């Protein structure tokens, strides 16, 4: 009885309708649970050092230890927190910037658009990773949060460009004119008519920036521009590389951060896909119709088989 009630809950209906979202949410939820509830899953602190150096996974050290005797499992869990935080921080900064800049350019057009587009184009042609490298090298040993801010301030250009062109195309659609003839204010036209049509773009840009920020942060720290004392997936990879972990066969040192990055990245990407499907019902309809035709085909072959018997 209760199970049936639960089955009809809108949330479960939504999850059943969107398998991509379900898998994505499960992956993200797992990562969140493991990283935010880290003390529940490991008995060691992030900075804990044991007297056993580079031992293979066993019952005490689930993912083994590093050259310096640190527990890989504990470091992976605590390091994930920083990665998530940096990603979200960078995502918020980049999406806010790109929304404001993109919509302004697209909506007002003319000379405003000309100037902003020029700025966007300049920001786009500057290669991001080298720019980040230079900034990080100049500042020396930057903390993870600062990396997040840097990524946020350097990766808005793509989103701004997409949102600008989207605003321009929606602005000339007839329902915007119809809202104008209705007498809606400019602000309302922008935020009640144009914006909802771009929510998918904005959220997918947000999720996309999170993925990019997490990867870029790991890259920067792996190269060695991060703060070596902080515990993140990037610095873990950096330390593993520095102590020649792969050459000596200590694969477990890489397993933790790599698995974390892969699961987080694919979970967010799946959520991104389902955002696309949600905002563009045609995509979902295509998927449902494909399933319908498959079922119909199966039914036909089934009845045919029945007839021949």
């Amino acid at each position: 009885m209760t199970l049936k009630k639960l089955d009809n809950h809108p949330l479960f209906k939504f999850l059943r309708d969107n398998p991509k979202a379900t898998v994505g949410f499960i992956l993200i939820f797992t990562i969140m649970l493991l990283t935010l509830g880290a003390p529940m899953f490991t008995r060691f602190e992030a900075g804990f050092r044991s007297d056993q150096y580079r031992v293979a996974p066993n019952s005490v050290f689930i993912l083994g230890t590093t050259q310096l005797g640190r527990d890989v499992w504990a470091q992976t869990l605590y390091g994930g927190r920083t990665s998530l935080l940096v990603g979200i921080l960078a995502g918020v900064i980049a999406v806010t910037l790109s929304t404001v800049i993109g919509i302004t350019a697209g909506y007002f057009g003319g000379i405003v658009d000309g100037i902003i587009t020029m700025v966007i184009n300049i920001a786009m042609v500057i290669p991001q990773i080298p720019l980040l490298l230079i900034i990080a090298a100049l500042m020396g040993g930057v903390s993870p949060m600062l990396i997040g801010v840097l990524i946020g301030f350097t990766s808005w250009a793509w989103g701004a460009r997409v949102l600008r062109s989207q605003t321009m195309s929606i602005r000339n659609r007839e329902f915007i004119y119809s809202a104008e003839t209705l007498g809606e204010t400019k602000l309302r036209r922008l935020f009640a008519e144009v914006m909802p049509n771009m929510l998918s773009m904005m959220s997918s840009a947000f999720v996309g920036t999170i993925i990019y920020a997490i990867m870029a942060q790991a890259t920067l720290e792996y190269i060695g521009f991060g703060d070596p004392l902080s515990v993140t997936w990037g610095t873990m990879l950096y330390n593993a590389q520095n102590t020649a972990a792969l050459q000596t066969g200590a694969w477990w040192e890489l397993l933790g951060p790599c698995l974390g990055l892969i699961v987080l990245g694919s979970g967010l990407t799946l959520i991104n896909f389902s955002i696309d499907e949600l905002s563009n019902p045609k995509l979902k309809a295509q998927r449902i119709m494909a399933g319908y035709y498959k079922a119909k085909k199966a039914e036909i072959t089934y009845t045919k088989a029945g007839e021949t018997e």
Partner: protein
Amino acid sequence: MDRQIVFSIKNVTMDFQISGKTFFSKKRTLRALNNVSFDLYKGESLAVVGESGCGKSTLCRIAMRFYTPSRGEMTYNGENVHKFKGNPLRNYRQKVQMIFQDPFSSLNPLHSIYYHLKRPLQLYHGYKGIELKAKMNEALEMVGLVPPEEQGIKNPHQLSGGQKQRAFLARILAIGADVIFADEPTSMLDVSIRLGVLNLMNKLKREMGKSFLYITHDIATARYFSDRIIVLYSGHMVEWGDVDKVVKHPVHPYTKLLISAAPDPERETLAKLEVRDDVEKEVTMWTPESRGCPFRNRCPVAESRCADDFPEAVEVKPDQFVRCIHAKEWKTENSAASEKPERNQPVG
């Protein structure tokens, strides 16, 4: 008969600068409308016909204040439309509305039908709660979207083209518009649905006294729905007047061409169109410097004097005006024949 003018267009000329906005290109201007004037009476339907690019939609867009005319003015109840501000503007927005050509893009895909109806009711009438809901259902029922509770919660993509156009009409009803500019409201619809929407508009016209400016390229529906007709060519009014007189006995060569180009089920073979083959068939681009009759390049009866001036309007029959150099000759012919056209009453 004493008829009240609600909307009038006086000598409207509209120029568009099509290039020359930057330093590098030569300045070129397109004249989309040239000296167009007419009145729209209360409770009547006035059809504006013409081929693509003749300025029909521009007319609508000027009336909706998307553009300001280069010369001339449009007046609503005697007041200049483009000078409204504040409360009068609000009143104008409520009373004069437009139906868009494409019902697939005139409704916001992310809002439900109820939302589209809710906004005007809140903006102009201040309805709330149960009353709002009742008014929304009333509007939906009036346009035949039943049951309203079921149709209202749908999003536009769940409705067919005809249903969308009906939903848009429901919105205009909800606003309470008196003058409706219908920019080819049926051209994107299936033939079978077209008549339904036209009948609905007819009902609004007859029962609620709404005035329509019906823009179309379909002479048959224009005759079915309208009382008067204006034939536009390249932004010029070439022939206008009573719809039956113009459609049955067209005088201007362009009107003749337009009517013979429309398929008629009673005619077995398509009539050969009388157009000169030696010139380009495109509509000539009209610039402020252009002189003469715009149709002379395609006209089968054009003469050299057509290039000099665009002739003044001649009333060839009562309530039928033509601007053509041959109009006077035709007028004398007609008065000699003195036939009496029967007026077909539209059904529905």
